[in-house]
């Protein structure tokens, strides 16, 4: 096969992938290891991504973004992970604004979207989960009570990632008590919370130390007063607004898992080719080859499902099943590739300087967040296969 018969990829994705790779090359493993050791947020990396306009890919051009499709955003995140960086530090800047874009009013969009696009304001925190309500979002207990031109918010969120490093939070709170609503999905509202104004007094953020450097927190609202103009869309419609953004989130995180899987598999093959034991490369042993090859095959299959889900999303069609399946399969594929990578490297897989143990811890998250694999299976069983609801 010579060069002339190769397809020429002039789609924006090829250029996007190239430039993201170049940017990520300036943030090698040593950068991430130092942050990991001291539990620090990757400020310089996030700034570089924001300055390059990468986090504004999905924001329309009229608000200062690039107005790209979801698959372009997926390509960006996949490349970040594939390069060994960690997009989890800022991926939410890409998609949380979706609720504002779809349901915010003209004034809110004009006020916030250009600043989010430029990176001047960070909207990376998504306040949904509470200690007493995990995936059962409708059971959340944080309340927002209307008082004149303001809302008064009381309650608590947990696993709110990046809250300390974000200016804004998309907050879901109950505005009508559960027993007073007509439909069980009514009564929740979404607010664009400007944390800068209330932090320290009415808003307290406490970091939670976790097994990887993910900057996650718990957040407390104590009679927090926010202007009524912070309400996004209609009062009581919040649950539907949140749901409408979840497919995008699933697909983007699936793309990150694909990137992780590719990073692990590249590491595995390089090492298996180079490491010589008993006079030959360890990769010559099928016992070493097969797990790597199997993980690779799983990744390619999951990659197809990510592409399929993104295509449906972009066509404006229902992609709930595909987005969930893509996220589950991609998270499993990245974990399988991670397993093969550690096993291939033996003891070196545990050594920090190989970056494998760090990525291993990071990629494990995606079988749990933003939704656990069990809940995806429950969704498929109930909504796709028509089996009885199990919970």
């Amino acid at each position, binding site marked *: 096969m010579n060069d002339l018969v190769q397809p020429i990829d*002039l789609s924006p994705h090829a250029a996007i992938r190239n430039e993201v790779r170049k940017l990520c090359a300036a943030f090698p493993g040593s950068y991430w290891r130092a942050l990991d050791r001291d539990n620090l947020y990757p400020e310089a990396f996030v700034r570089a991504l924001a300055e*390059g*306009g990468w986090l504004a890919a999905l924001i329309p051009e009229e608000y200062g973004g690039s107005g790209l499709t979801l698959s372009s955003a997926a390509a960006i995140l996949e490349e970040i992970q594939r390069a060994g960086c960690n997009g989890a530090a800022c991926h939410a800047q890409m998609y949380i604004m979706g609720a504002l874009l779809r349901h915010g009013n003209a004034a809110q969009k004009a006020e916030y979207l250009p600043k989010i696009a430029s990176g001047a304001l960070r909207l990376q925190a998504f306040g949904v989960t509470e200690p007493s309500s995990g995936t059962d979002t409708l059971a959340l207990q944080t309340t927002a009570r209307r008082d004149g031109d303001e809302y008064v918010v009381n309650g608590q969120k947990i696993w709110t990632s990046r809250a300390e490093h974000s200016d804004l939070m998309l907050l879901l709170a109950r505005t009508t008590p559960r027993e007073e609503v007509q439909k069980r999905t009514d009564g929740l509202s979404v607010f664009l919370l400007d944390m800068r104004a209330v932090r320290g007094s009415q808003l307290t953020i406490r970091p939670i130390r976790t097994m990887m450097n993910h900057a996650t927190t718990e957040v407390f609202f104590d009679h927090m007063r926010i202007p009524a103009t912070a309400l996004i869309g209609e009062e009581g419609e919040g649950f539907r607004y949140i749901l409408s953004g979840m497919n995008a989130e699933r697909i983007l995180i699936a793309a990150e898992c694909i990137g992780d899987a590719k990073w692990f598999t590249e590491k595995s093959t390089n090492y298996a080719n180079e490491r010589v034991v008993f006079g030959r490369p360890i990769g010559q042993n099928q016992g070493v080859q097969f797990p790597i090859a199997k993980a690779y095959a799983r990744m390619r299959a999951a990659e197809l499902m990510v592409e399929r889900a993104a295509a449906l999303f972009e066509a404006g069609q229902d992609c709930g099943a595909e987005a969930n399946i893509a996220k589950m399969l991609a998270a499993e594929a990245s974990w399988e590739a991670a397993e093969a990578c550690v096993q291939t490297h033996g003891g070196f897989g545990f050594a920090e300087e190989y970056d494998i143990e760090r990525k291993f811890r990071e990629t494990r998250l995606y079988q749990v967040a933003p939704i656990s694999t069990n809940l995806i299976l429950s969704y498929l069983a109930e909504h796709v296969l028509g089996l009885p609801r199990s919970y």
Partner: protein
Amino acid sequence: MKLLVPVKRVVDYNVKVRVKSDGMGVETAGVKMSMNPFDEIAIEEAVRLKEKGIASEIIAVSMGIAACQETIRTALAMGADRGILVETDVELQPLAVAKMLKALVDKEQPGMVIMGKQAIDDDMNATGQMLAALLGWPQGTFASKLDIADGTATVIREIDGGLETVALTLPAVVTADLRLNEPRYASLPNIMKARKKPIETIKPADLGVDPAPRLTTLKVVEPAKRKAGVKVANVAELVAKLRNEAKVI
């Protein structure tokens, strides 16, 4: 002042190149290709001159197969204004490239050509010099600093003995060395803008040049494998070996 910047599509510097099975070149099928890194530096310098108001327009030129458009798009995303692709399937050698560049210079009338000092694929380090000779222009090769004022380009050149400063009367050819600048990353908005910038495609015949190779490749081989070294116990043994075995001191 218009600037003309040639950009070459080469095997990416991260790729471990392999000799093709016919022994006549290196494998490029399925291999990641990128802009020659020295050409990236040339584009960056041109963009900086435009940002300073010294240059008015930057034309990125690439020659070769249709895929060279990707390389031109990269240049456009970095800040070049328009592109020209001289499309040909013929293997291009420095003299043919220099002749075609001369024809483009005659047509476009740039005030300066800035280009990489060499391409990392064949390391010829010849096209810039040949172009300057064909044009009868002064040349500042291996530039590590470039200043332009009053129709003169002052170039600091990296030479074996150190640094040499030359003053060139414009128009001139300048070739970029590694330390001239650090090229920028293209931002996402600029990648999207680059997709709307024009690329003109022409053929070598349109420039009146026959690009057929004048040099014949006889064979391409991998470098010999490095042999294992030996450990020496102390400085005295090292000196003895260098003197008696290697005979270098």
